[in-house]
């Protein structure tokens, strides 16, 4: 009886059809001043993969998935291959299980180079086609740092380029509401000294300068690691940052502790962060920026990566209702304009001609431009046409990325998983709430790191 009922419901539910084939967002040949169609035509002429299937898995879901699929549609149209992308919220676990069980996709999109490096070391990645490494060095801004990020030791111990970085995120951004700044007479700070002075001034004026939220479910604490990384780049040389990421200098080193304390100055000084340190530790990072848009404003500034506009209240226009500035560097320290970022790395987990052709496709300007012309895509690729960006806001962000004198990838994403996605997060939460001092927090992380070295 129950079964009949179920079948009835099932039949009704079947009315929704399968997803229809994706159409090309921009017709090839249209708007030649924005898109490099010759690269598309050339690629289509050189590559024929009809009858082949390419499977890709990655961390992009929801809207990001739709955007990525709009790019894939061009690859499919150019080569005749069938492309099947599936995104997963738990990509990091899924890909490891799939690789170990022998059911990997052709291509995997890694949000963290650390994970890709692990998989390369275990022999689950196939090296990129010949010449990809040199291509990255020559065509990406800060090419050497991107090259280093995609080059790991394989199972045989030899260093090779195993991933292709495509799509970057910018982390060193501070978001603010221009209208609020205008009304209160505040100016966008150009140096870290100015930013600190502004923070003190806002507090003196009776406002709250910052909204900070570390909450993120099981990943609670990660936003604080971005703060610390940004301060590592603003107080120390990039080489020191690299040594820190690989633990050549210890977490307990005074240089690192100083960076943690710099973050603490913003998050823990009474009156600087909305709700005080306890609220900072528990507020969800997705809800945190909403304080910018209250009246009276709950806070004036919010430091977060380029993806955060997704979580602004519905209908908020970036560039108009809200804007951003570069998280400035100290004028007194001669460290240039360091930029902290993140990005996704494409790795071949099951080799096939289609997979290798796909990497070649990602090198073409058109692959980037299709995504740029929509939203949420930044790239260090110097060959793309900035005119392709959908708006000035993104163009401006990408300029920050291209102008960076130093680019460094999110450090916690490169550290071993146990540190970068656990110990570091937890220690930052403990430090923020005041359960631990900066020194104690650093020591707790270092202890864990010593533990996994054995």
């Amino acid at each position, binding site marked *: *009886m*129950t*079964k009949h*009922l*179920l079948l009835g*419901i*099932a039949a009704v*539910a*079947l*009315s*929704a*059809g*399968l*997803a229809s084939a994706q159409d090309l967002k921009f017709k090839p040949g249209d708007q030649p001043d924005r898109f490099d169609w010759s690269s598309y035509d050339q690629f289509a002429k050189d590559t024929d993969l009809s009858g082949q299937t390419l*499977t890709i*898995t990655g961390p*992009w*879901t*929801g*809207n*990001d*998935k739709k955007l990525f699929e709009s790019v894939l549609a061009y690859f499919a149209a150019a080569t005749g291959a069938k492309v*099947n992308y*599936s*995104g*997963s*919220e*738990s990509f990091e676990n*899924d890909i490891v*299980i*799939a690789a*170990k*069980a*022998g*059911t990997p*996709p052709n291509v995997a999109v890694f949000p963290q180079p650390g994970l890709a490096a692990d998989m390369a070391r275990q022999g689950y990645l196939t090296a990129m086609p010949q010449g990809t490494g040199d291509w990255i060095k020559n065509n990406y801004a800060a090419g050497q740092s991107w090259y280093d990020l995609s080059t790991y030791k394989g199972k045989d111990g030899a260093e090779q380029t195993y991933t292709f970085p495509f799509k970057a995120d910018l982390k060193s951004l501070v978001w603010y509401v221009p*209208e*609020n700044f205008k*009304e*209160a007479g505040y100016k966008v700070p150009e140096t870290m000294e100015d930013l600190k002075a502004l923070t003190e001034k806002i507090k003196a004026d*009776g*406002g709250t300068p910052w909204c900070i939220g570390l909450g993120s*479910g099981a990943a609670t604490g990660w936003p604080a690691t971005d703060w610390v990384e940004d301060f590592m780049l603003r107080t120390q040389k990039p080489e020191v940052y690299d040594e820190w990421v690989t633990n050549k200098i210890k977490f307990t080193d005074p240089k690192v502790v100083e960076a943690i304390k710099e973050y603490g100055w913003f998050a823990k000084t009474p009156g600087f962060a909305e709700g005080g340190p306890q609220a900072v530790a528990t507020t969800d990072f*997705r*809800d945190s920026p*909403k304080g910018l848009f*209250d*009246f*009276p*404003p709950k806070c004036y500034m919010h430091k977060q990566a380029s*993806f955060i506009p*997704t*979580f602004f*209240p*519905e*209908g908020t226009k970036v560039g108009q209702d809200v804007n951003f500035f570069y998280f400035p560097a100290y004028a007194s320290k001669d460290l240039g304009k360091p930029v902290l970022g993140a990005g996704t790395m494409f790795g071949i987990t099951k080799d096939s001609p289609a997979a290798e052709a796909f990497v070649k496709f990602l090198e073409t300007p058109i692959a980037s431009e299709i995504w740029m012309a929509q939203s949420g895509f930044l790239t260090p690729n110097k060959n793309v046409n900035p005119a392709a960006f959908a708006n000035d806001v993104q163009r401006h962000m990408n300029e920050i990325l291209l102008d960076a004198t130093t680019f460094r990838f999110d450090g916690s994403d490169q550290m071993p998983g146990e540190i970068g996605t656990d110990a570091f997060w937890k220690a930052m939460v403990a430090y923020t709430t005041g359960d631990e001092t900066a020194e104690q927090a650093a020591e707790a992380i270092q202890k864990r790191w010593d533990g996994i070295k054995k």
Partner: protein
Amino acid sequence: MSAIAGQKSRLTWAVQISVVVMVVLWLIPTVGLLVSSFRTTDQISQSGWWDAAFPVEKAFRDRIPADGETQANGAYVLEGNLLTDGQNAQDLKSGAKIVAFGTSGIKPDKYKPGETADLGDGATMTVNADGTFKASSPVSFEGSGPRVYFVADMPPAFTLSNYREVLYSDGMGQAFMNTLTVTIPATIIPILVAAFAAYALAWMEFPGRGLLIAAVVGLLVVPLQLALVPLLRLHQEVGIGQSFLGIWLAHTGFGLPLAIYLLRNYMVGLPRDIIESAKVDGATDFQIFMKIVLPLSFPALASFAIFQFLWVWNDLLVAKVFLPANDWSKVMTVKIADDLLGSRGGDWGILASAAFISIAVPLLVFFAMQKYLVRGLLAGSVKGG
């Protein structure tokens, strides 16, 4: 109990009240989820669900366009309605009322409706509760009209948009079918296998029976996560791969220890006389199983069926591992988690409505079979051994 039969204990009331309290406490999260499922993501992050039924005060900002300027008595005048024609008209559709207004973001509630605010340079502005305003200035407003902040009393608002988004999203029907395709065989197969095994372990004498039962009990405590990779590897080697057949087998395997244990405990409690007299009459084990034990064990079978059905229906992990990662083999849990929650999972409203939509079928199953659940559970546990 029989001693006080027919007369109401004084404790009855205490028991009933505490039951009600327990039930209410138990239901609070569910009610919260239900209320949240009718609210937008912005509403959810602004106020708790317990405030959903009350009007909320919310502040808005508006800039009055200066192009509607008129001249009267030597003053430049702007008139209009903030609620119906302003920049926030979309959000203020039904029945909002202005309770305060102001001219700066720091004090958006400085003036009561009807009061006159000083805009500086001799300009003034009045805003009324119904949203109408009048600003006048001795000089032209020229291009940029005055900025105004106001606090509006928003009536409670509920929306079905979350449900619409979940129900009408691409491929939801396919996901629903897939979930059924996984769940029904993955419920029936283990019951079939377990019923035979349970009978054998309960009523057939053979060497090593005790050890076998102990092994089954031991398997109850093995976390299935341990078996994911080796099992998938095995499937890959024998050619099943990632497929529906694979997930049926996986769920069967993961469900069997509990099924055998539950059914065996129930069957062992059946009256020995019936079974022995059947044996004396010359019935084979198969006949006893089919004609006597199986009909008598229906409550236990039903209660296990509910368990297994709910567990497979709600399962995310096994489906992710054992089904291919493509759009047309996604089950509902995977579809909801990966496609509907938005990038980085920020859409709380969708999560709530998806929970209620995916709960519908298990609820039907539960209510259809719940009278067996309690009987089966009690019988299996209390009489066990």
